[in-house]
Structure formats: structure tokens, C-alpha cells
């Protein structure tokens, strides 16, 4: 048998395809195929007794349970001189109530590059019902009832729904997908919307491919094995001149098998960045190609990956050029400024204010920077890479930074797995200070990023591929509110409130002003105060100074109150009214978007003719000795004046599930204190 080094068409394509594909694709290829030898589930082997189960121990309230979800991926030689991937999926599910009908609607996404669509093969789907003690089969009409929906130029969805579904139905399907897009070895989710009694995935990895296998989640494997056999591969290479060359060789194939049993359904909880971080899942990354091929490292070091990115026409290549074509726009943006920091700000603002972001979550150029400039729009990577090009053109040092947003999930700290990244921003260093810039976000200040970007590890794409940390914990939302209430000459209480919210709250306020106008915002402030005060003056500062938080200022008259006793909540309308942690239990870690430091203080003159009868007690609540969260509630009188201060500090943004109860109790105390009252009593005239 001849052994020869292959004219390997897949490998050079790997990088290229992966960048355009992975994004759309990761959704597409759901799990797929086929009952294997030794597996407990055989298609069609449904007995009347299988219907007896009305609820499964794993989750007695489940509306449907996946009894078995079995998949495999194998490599095959093909007639195109390369390899194809064959993914198979077999699934059996039991629908227990009407609420579970949705499990009968199946979508199979297929990737297409416009001409070559992945091939759905051997689809079979059967519904089983128990009628008069007998199992009755209803087959899916493959010819007429499997629909094709062309979602866009790269995605086709084949969909069908099982016929004759009732509460109690058992359904089964199996299918194969033959794909020439071999870079994309299918990952496997062991967990999903419905509980699974059995989830099994096998992958036959030929020795000429080495994969890194990554698994995550909190569910244990029942079985995790590997077995090596020798397998014969055959492929035909049509070549160029009409003569087809046949290749045949043996290679070791290691078959990996992973099994999980009794996997509960995924549960959505508040303060979770994304369930992607927590789902029980396994995925693969091609690391190298070896014998019988010439050895090739597919997964390189970060330094090599970064260098490749910098040379890539779809990423950094255009940044290296002189880009004289940017001359006019740079001059226009700078508008005569000479100081570096001001130049940088002006370029940033020009790009931010003139370009529309058409797509987030990209990490490559889909058109040239020239076209981005011409269209005045682009995805976030395009806009920020153009920003970098313009900064460099103005002799300001700037580099791309690649990251994964919070909702896209964590990246791998060590391996350069680019497909985990989804976002590109800009880093510029001016006078020794780092500024992270994102010109794709409307109204984002210079050096500010959306909290979505603060997701831990990120990489500067420079020759050193410098790792950096963008931690939610380092992002602090600082809010200060100060209130003065005094008695004027006529003995009436008048007051003022100055509020400077944190940066993100400020942006929410700006957005509201933009959508509904100043008036609506003032209405909101009035609503918040309730009916005890009349607002006499109000103003909002820094609405269009995006680098700073907004400032809100309100003057008000307190409505006269002649009751014998006056009860007053010193937090006015600013206190916590709800515990942010509603649920009594917690499964996944708590991930907060930023740290918090909120101070509310008040100087209050006792109303004329009244005495202080009772003050709330002063309290300091510490979440723990490390001071990860602290709440202070201080109140004191001096003469006719009351000083009050409430401060809530949360320094840590990540908490484990077993810390949840304490955290919930901590906020319970905050809400309690924020609900307490000062009691004034009328002076009794002697």
C-alpha cells in the first residue's frame, strides 16, 4: 500500500472557513446521529410497558423527558481528495403532558456556502401511541412534511413536526449529516431544556488529527472511555487532468465515548452572564495533523496566532499599511488639534458618531476598511479596526484587543481558540495610560466600555499576544446622592437633591432622554418622589458629555404636614424596595456585571414645631470579614439637625451558589433598613 503525503486541501482552508463559519454554524449543527452497536436503544423497539411511566424520578414535573440522546462523529475519505465528517444523531423522547409538545418540533440546521449544502441523510421519525393496549406507529411523511426554510445565504433549516402527538406519545428520530466542512467537529450538549436520562457521544478521531477536548459543566460522566483500532481510509482525488487518484491507507482511530445519565434540565437564573458557561457540554479544537501526513500544528501558540491575525487581510493586514487614503478623514476628524490625547478623542468621537454598527459579535472584517469608510457602517470589528487605522495614521499607537462578551461566555485562558471570541475593540496608550475604546457603541465615552466586555481574559493582538484581564470586579458603578432639607424663613421645609448616578445608569438615563425627551425623565423623578413634595426646579447636566456620568439636580418644597406625628423615611424615594435575589435556591454561580458603591446622604432640619421622637438604629452589615459587601446605615442628631448616610458597597462580582443564601440575607437587611422611618412629634405647648 502506498503512503504519500497528501495535497491536503482541508488544512489551509481550516482557518479561513472557521472564521466565516463558526459563528453561524455553532447554532446550526445541533446534535445528530445513530444507534451504535451495544447501545441500549434500538430504533422502533417500543413496548406497551414503556408508556406506563407517567413521571420520571429525575424531574416529576417535566412535561417531556429525553430518554436517550445518542450521537457520533466519524471521518470518512471522500471523492474530493479530502475527508468528510459524518455526524449521526438518534433521539427518543417521552411526551408526558401537553406542555411538552414543543419537543415534537424539530429543526436541523445545515450550513451552506451558497452552492454546497450539508447533506441531510436517512431521516426517520416515528410517533408511538398506546391505543387499546397496543403500540401504534405513525411515521413522518418525509417527502411532504419536511420543510426547508432558507434563513440566509449560509443557513438552511430543515424542519418537521412529529405527526399524531398526544400527551403520552413516545417519539423517535434518527438522521445523518454528511459535511464537507470538516473543521467543524460537532460539539455535544449533554444538557438542555428537557431532562435527559441518557446522553452519549462518541467520536472516532483518526491518528492524523489531534484534538483538544474541552468539557464543562457540573454533571459527572457515567462513562468516559477510549479505545484504539486500526481503520482503513480510502479517498479519491479527482486531480486536475481528469485522472482520479485513489488513496488507501490504515490509521489508528481512537474512539472516545462520553456518557451522562440523568442530566437535569437547564435552569435560567438571574445574574447569570450566559448559560453557555454552565451547560454540561463537550467540544473540540483541532490541534495538529500528523502521520501519515506531514506534521502540521493547526493550533499554534498565541504568538503565532496573533501574528497570523496581524497578517490576515480580514483582520490586521490593512492596519500595517500606510493608509494614505485615510489622510483627509483623519484631518477632518482631528480638526486642527495637536495634543495626542485630544487628537485621539476626536478621532474616536468622529468614528463613533459617523458610523453605524450593523452587527455585533464579529471578529473579522467582512469588507475592506475602505468600504467600511465608504459605507459609513460595519460590524463592530470593522468599525474598531478602522478606528485603529485612523489612530495609527495620526501617529497614535493603537492595537486591536480580541475578547468574548459576557453573553458569549468565557474564553479558554490558555489555548488560542479563536472561535470562542466574538468581539474586537481598540487599545491605545497615551502618556503611559491605557484607554480601551469601542467606537461601535453609540454614546460610549472615551475610554469606556460596555460592561458586556468585562468577561475576564482577553488578548491584545500584538506580536506578543499580550494577555489582559477585563474583570467585572474592576468596574465600579459609583453613585452619590446628597439631599438637604431646611426650614425657610416662613417655616416651610424646602430641599434640594443632587444625584450623580454610576456610568451605566447614566447611559440608561441618556437613552431615555433620547427616546422620550427631558420631560418624560422629569415626570419619572416626580413619580419617584410621590406626592409629598412639589418639585420647583430641576436640571440634568452632562447629558451629551459621554465621558462623564450625568448629574441631576432637583429643588423641591415639602408639602406642609400638620399631623401630630410625622413619619419620614430618610431614603425618600431612593431606597432598595426589592431584594434583587428573588429565588429561594440557587444552582449556578452569581455573576454580577460590576462592583457597586452607592452612597445616599442627607442633612435634615427638624420641622418647625416638632421634636425627634425616634430615629432608626445605626447599623453596619458586613457580608464577610474580607469586606466583599458592606452596608452602612448611620444616623445622628445634633441640635435641630439630623445627619443621615446610607452606603452600600459590593466589591466582589462573582459568588458561588453556596454563598447565595448569605447574599440574599444581606440584601434583605438592606431593604429592611431602607424601609425605616424617623418619627417627629409635635411639641406640646405648655
Amino acid at each position, binding site marked *: 500500500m502506498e503512503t504519500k503525503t497528501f495535497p491536503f486541501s482541508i488544512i489551509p482552508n481550516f482557518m479561513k472557513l472557521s472564521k466565516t463559519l463558526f459563528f453561524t454554524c455553532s447554532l446550526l449543527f445541533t446534535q445528530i446521529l445513530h444507534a451504535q452497536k451495544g447501545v441500549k436503544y434500538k430504533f422502533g423497539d417500543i413496548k406497551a410497558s414503556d408508556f406506563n411511566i407517567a413521571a420520571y424520578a429525575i424531574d416529576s414535573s417535566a412535561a417531556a423527558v429525553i430518554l436517550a440522546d445518542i450521537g457520533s462523529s466519524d471521518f470518512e475519505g471522500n471523492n474530493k481528495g479530502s475527508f468528510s465528517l459524518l455526524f449521526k444523531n438518534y433521539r427518543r423522547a417521552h411526551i408526558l403532558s*401537553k406542555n411538552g409538545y414543543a419537543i415534537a418540533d424539530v429543526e436541523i440546521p445545515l450550513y451552506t456556502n451558497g452552492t454546497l449544502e450539508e447533506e441531510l441523510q436517512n431521516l426517520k421519525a416515528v410517533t408511538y401511541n398506546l391505543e387499546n393496549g397496543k403500540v401504534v406507529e405513525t411515521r413522518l411523511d418525509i417527502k411532504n412534511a419536511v*420543510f426547508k*426554510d*432558507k434563513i440566509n445565504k449560509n443557513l438552511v433549516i430543515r424542519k418537521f413536526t412529529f405527526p399524531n402527538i398526544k400527551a403520552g406519545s413516545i417519539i423517535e428520530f434518527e438522521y445523518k449529516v454528511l459535511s464537507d466542512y470538516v473543521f467543524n467537529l460537532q460539539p455535544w450538549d449533554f444538557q438542555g431544556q428537557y431532562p435527559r436520562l441518557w446522553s452519549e457521544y462518541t467520536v472516532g478521531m483518526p491518528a492524523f488529527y489531534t484534538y483538544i477536548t474541552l468539557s464543562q459543566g457540573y454533571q459527572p460522566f457515567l462513562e468516559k472511555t477510549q479505545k484504539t483500532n486500526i481503520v482503513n481510509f480510502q479517498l479519491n482525488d479527482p486531480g486536475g487532468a481528469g485522472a482520479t487518484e485513489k488513496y488507501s491507507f490504515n490509521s489508528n482511530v481512537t474512539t472516545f465515548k462520553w456518557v451522562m445519565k440523568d442530566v437535569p434540565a437547564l435552569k435560567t437564573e438571574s445574574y447569570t452572564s450566559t448559560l453557555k458557561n454552565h451547560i454540561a457540554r463537550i467540544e473540540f479544537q483541532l490541534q495538529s495533523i500528523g502521520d501519515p501526513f506531514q506534521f502540521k500544528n493547526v493550533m499554534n501558540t498565541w504568538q503565532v496566532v496573533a501574528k497570523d491575525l496581524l497578517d490576515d487581510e480580514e483582520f490586521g493586514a490593512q492596519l500595517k499599511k500606510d493608509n494614505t487614503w485615510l489622510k483627509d478623514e483623519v484631518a477632518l476628524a482631528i480638526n486642527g488639534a495637536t495634543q495626542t490625547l485630544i487628537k485621539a478623542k476626536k478621532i474616536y468621537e468622529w468614528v463613533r458618531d459617523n458610523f*453605524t454598527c450593523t452587527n455585533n459579535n464579529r471578529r473579522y472584517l467582512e469588507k475592506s476598511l475602505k468600504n467600511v469608510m465608504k459605507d459609513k457602517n460595519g460590524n463592530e470589528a470593522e468599525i474598531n479596526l478602522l478606528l485603529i487605522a485612523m489612530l495609527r495614521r495620526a501617529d497614535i499607537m493603537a492595537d486591536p484587543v480580541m475578547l468574548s462578551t459576557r453573553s458569549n461566555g468565557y474564553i479558554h485562558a490558555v489555548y488560542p481558540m479563536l472561535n470562542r471570541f466574538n468581539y474586537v475593540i481598540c487599545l491605545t496608550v497615551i502618556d503611559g495610560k491605557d484607554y480601551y475604546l469601542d467606537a461601535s457603541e*453609540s454614546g460610549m465615552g472615551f475610554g469606556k466600555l460596555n460592561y458586556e466586555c468585562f468577561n475576564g481574559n482577553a488578548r491584545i493582538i500584538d506580536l506578543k499576544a499580550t494577555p489582559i484581564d477585563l474583570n467585572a470586579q474592576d468596574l465600579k458603578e459609583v453613585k452619590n446622592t446628597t439631599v438637604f432639607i431646611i426650614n425657610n424663613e416662613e417655616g416651610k421645609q424646602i430641599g434640594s437633591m443632587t444625584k450623580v448616578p454610576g456610568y451605566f445608569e447614566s447611559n440608561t438615563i441618556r437613552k431615555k432622554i433620547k427616546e422620550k425627551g427631558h420631560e418624560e425623565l422629569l415626570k419619572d423623578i416626580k413619580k419617584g418622589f410621590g406626592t409629598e413634595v412639589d418639585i420647583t426646579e430641576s436640571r440634568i447636566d452632562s447629558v451629551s458629555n459621554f465621558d462623564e456620568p450625568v448629574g441631576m439636580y432637583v429643588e423641591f418644597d415639602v408639602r406642609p404636614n400638620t399631623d401630630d406625628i410625622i413619619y419620614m423615611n430618610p431614603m425618600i424615594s431612593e431606597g432598595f424596595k426589592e431584594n434583587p435575589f428573588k429565588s429561594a435556591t440557587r444552582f449556578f454561580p452569581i455573576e454580577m456585571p460590576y462592583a457597586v458603591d452607592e452612597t445616599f446622604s442627607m442633612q435634615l432640619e427638624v420641622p418647625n414645631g416638632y421634636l425627634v421622637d*425616634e430615629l432608626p438604629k445605626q447599623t453596619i452589615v458586613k457580608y464577610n470579614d474580607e469586606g466583599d459587601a458592606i452596608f452602612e446605615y448611620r444616623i445622628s442628631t445634633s441640635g435641630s439637625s439630623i445627619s443621615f448616610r446610607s452606603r452600600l458597597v459590593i466589591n466582589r462580582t462573582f459568588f458561588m451558589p453556596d454563598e447565595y443564601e448569605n447574599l440574599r440575607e444581606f440584601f434583605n437587611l438592606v431593604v429592611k433598613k431602607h424601609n425605616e422611618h424617623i418619627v417627629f412629634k409635635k411639641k406640646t405647648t405648655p
Partner: protein
Amino acid sequence: MKKKLVIISAAIFLCISALAEDGEYAVSKISPALLKNAHAVLRLETLSLEIIGHTKTTYKNHYVITILNENGEQWSPFYEYYDKHRKIESAEGFLYDVNGKLLKKVKLKDMEDVSGVSESSLIDDDRVKRHSFYHKVYPYTIEYNVEISNSSTLFFPYWVPQGRAGISVEQSSMKIICNEDYQFRYKAFNYSSAPIVTIEKNKKITSWSVKILPSISKELYGPLWHELTTMVIFGPTEFQIDEYQGNMLTWQDFGKFIHSLKQGRDVLPDNVKQKVHALTDGISDVKTKIALLYAYLQKNTRYISIQLGIGGWQPFEAKFVATKAYGDCKALTNYMYSLLKEAGIKSFYALIRAGANAGYITADFPSQQFNHVILSVPLANDTVWLECTSQTLPMGYLSDFTCDRFALLVDEDGGKLVRTPKYGLNENTAIRKVYARLNSEGTLKVNSITNYTGLQQDDLHGMINNLSKEKVKEYLERDLDFATYDIDRFEYKENKSVLPVINEALDITVSNYATISGRRLFIVPNVMTRSHRKPVKDDQRKYDVILNYEFRDIDSVEIEIPEGYTVESLPANVTVTSQFGKYSITSKLNGNKITCFRIAEQYSGRFPAASYNEMVKYYEDVYKADRAKMVLVKNEATKGF
């Protein structure tokens, strides 16, 4: 050769710049009156519909919109759907800057082509051409030209220059071109004059136009859109879709057409026929028969929407549903109709416009205004309505999805408009009893028992029938109006009658429900039911106030508190009576027991704009009274001897 091309494109470019200098769409040319409250200005709109025959119309739309700011972005993208009957023949778009200078253009072939399959459908054949210039420098102007041909005349377009609040209009016109003898129909809203009719080359041209319409601001609880703006709706007389012909002159005629689509599709397979007889033979009461067959339908079918070609209008045959056990509203209603027919019960296929508060039908303008089908079964003394897409609704009950609106009953004699039932004050109730005990830390243990009826139980019905117990708990843990609380127990019992009742029992532990500081105890006696409406005063209210929903809530609360407190401050007893509703709340302390009684009624109706602030005051009073606190003080410790 190459050089020549360059010259040509340069010439085109010059031509464009020459145009640009004209600045036809320069923003400076907009009258200041049109900028007030506007996010966009429709500079020009020319619509025309040419009716060439029953199976061919051509629709042309040329429009120019200036987008003034970010909130005007909703008018910026181009969006047209197409399908088997509707074809986009041509389309082009242009972008202009503030001075009216042409910046970019786009042709049909460069527009995005995407699936238009709706969220609720498994499959339909809608596809969409869409495009946006994604411009960001405001103001700017877009212009689009589109021509669409249609091989069916079931639908005619409508003309509404202002589709939403926030857009003003410089000029807009609509014309219908048809043969002199062709009769189309129209109905105009807020358009007082008659259209202009001219004859050109044996074609009759009927046209409508408006100039200078200022932007409309939408108001809370305002009237329907067609009352606020100029709109003309159109309809054919004779029309055709595929091989089906009809006439829309009257509802009766339109009903005949709908009937022709479903005619002969009610044949059941033998096994289902036998099933019908097995279930109903020998039973004399008609309602019992209906109940048995409706239960059979609910148990054996589910809703799946497949809308391909004429399938968008025509029901799948009864035998299709019998074998697949699924269908869309048309198919399932036709199936139920067939089951009843087999049992000798006559029913009507009933077209309706579904959606909460979205059921308005222009009753004097027969046309295809419907989006759903239900079934009406007339009996000697009343009518049983059946929603055939639901596996859970009680027989005879229409939720807020289809209640209180017109439905078109269809049979071989044609169509007839009738009203579906309205659920009012006496039907939509929530009667609640709360027993609670407060401990010395301020924690309240609540036992709440509530009977919800009518529309007040709709959401709960959806929740308990569509969510697992675990999800219901998650919902309850999120939704109640307390700061920190745990759901200790919850239970729902459903009485599926014509007026359905859901009984809810909740045990809740509320942390720090009362604030106990030093000697005092602060507590809100009204534990569970608080109004959240807080409309803001408006001295310039322009439109009438429309309230659709009527309900009655009654709460009786008993709270046992720790011994040794006396009242320092009692919430005032409040009674408010207005044309919008009636409210009263009273609370007191007896020994160590707080009692609170609350009743709130909301009325529906149309109220003059001038009464808006009265409504605001009413809701303010209710909001405040619902949250009023009782303050208790600890009795001084009894002194020793």
C-alpha cells in the same frame, strides 16, 4: 475601452451632483410646523394600485422620508414581503444627506433576501426583501421606489400616510387605476372630500391626496389609530385567488367565498366517524355531546401552523387533521366542525381578528380583516363558542384573545357578522381572603386564598397549563409585590366552566414585611392587592380616554400581630367614586388583630379628554391608599409596685 468607461461613469457622477445642487430633499425645505414632535417627515409618497384583472394588479410605491433623529430609525429600513402570489418586480433606494445630496443607492438585487416565516408558524412561504442604509448622521433622507405585482385580488392595500405617532407628512397621494366599469370599494377616515375621478385612455383614475399633516403624539388610553389620522381602506368587489372567485360587496358574499374554500373538506375517515358515534350516540343533551367532542379534539390534536400557498386561506381537510393530529386554526376549526356535523350538530366556521384589545373590525366595510378562525355552535337558547387551537380552554369560554368583538359566521348561505361575548365587571373578579400572622421580627406568614374568574384568570390559566410546577414556582418567586419572600406552598384548582374559575392558595413567608424600629411597628394592612397604575397629569390631553377592561377586586385581610401594641396612626379610610371606577379601603386594629377590607372596581367606556386628569387623580388616590401604613406603638411596660 477602459478609458471610455471611466468617462461615462464620470458623466453619471456629474449628473448626480447637478441634481444634488437642486437639493430637492434638502432638510432646510421642510416647513418648521412639520418638525414639531416629529422624528421623521414623509416628504413625498405616491402610491398607486392598478387593477388589470381579477388575477393581476400592479402596486407602485414611491416614497421619500427624512429621518430627523435616532427615534426616526423605525422609518428607515425598506421591508417588503413576497410569496407565491405577490412578486416584487423592481425596487431601488437612494440616500441623501442633510442638503439633499445623493450619497448612496441600492438596487433590488443588492437587497437582503431572508425568510419571512413568522415565529408562530412551522412553515409558510413568506420571504422578505429588506435593506437599510445604516446611516447615522442626522438628519438624512431616504427614497425608495418599489413595484409589486399580485396574481390575486383578495387583498387591496390601504393608504395611511401616517402609520404611527412621530411622523409628519409633506405630501402623500394614492390612486386606483382600473377599467371604467370596474367597481372597487373604499372607506375613508378623516378625509372629508370626495376623491378626484378622471378618465384617461379608457381607464378610470380615482385619487386621494393630503398635504401638511403635523406629527401625532400618542396618548395613554387613547382611541384607535384610524380615529386619529387620515386613512382610506380599499376592497374589491369581484376578486380571485388561484381558481377561487368571490365577491366582497357584502359580508354575505364574502362568507360565500370563505365557504367555497372549505367546501367538501369536512369528510372524516371511518375510524373517526365511529369514534364520534361511540362518544355521542345515545346522549340526548346537545351540550354534553359538544363537551365530549371538544374534549376529544383537545386531547387528540395540537396547533401547528403551516401556511403554504392557498393554504394560508384554505383549511386542510378534516382527514389530514385526523391522521396527523395537528393543524392550524382553520384546519382544527374545520375538523371540529366536521366532528359536530357527524354528530348531527350544526356549527359555523367563524372568522375573527384575534388578540387582546386588537379585535376591531370595520363592520361596514366587508373585506378580509381577519387573522383567526373559531367555531360557533348555535343552540336553542344560547351559543357555544369553541377555540379549537387550545388544548386547555373550557368549552364555551373565549379569553381576551377573541372576546367582545365581531366574528363572521360562515355557511353555505354566506356570511353574517355577530358579536362574541363580552366579559364585564361581574365576570372578571378576584375575590381574596388573606390570613396572616406577624412575628416580633417583622416576618409575616401569609395564607392567601383567591378565586379568579373570567379575564382575571386568563394569565393564570396560561401559566398553570403551560408551565411545569417548577416554572410556576419560579414565576411566583419573581412576581409578587414583596421585597424578600419565600413561597412555602402553592396550589391551583381550575373549574373549567363557561365562566372559568381558578382557585389559588398561597402560603408565603415575607421577611421584614413590617418595620419594627424601637417602640414602633409600621405595617401596610393591605397585603396582597395593590394598584400599579400611576398615570401622570396632562393638561393638554387631546383625545378621549378609552378604557376596555372591567374588573372587580375584593380583599379581606386579617393580620394577627404580637401582643402589646396600640394604634398611633391609622391609615385613613378611603372611598373614591368616579366614572372610571369605585374604590374603598378600611383598616382597623382590634386587640392584636388588624383587619382590612378593600374593594376596587374598574369600569370601561369612552370618556371625554377633559376628564383625563380626573382619572389621574383617581388612580393617584388608589395608589396611595393601597400603600398607606398603620403605625403602632408598644405599650409602656407596666410598672411594678
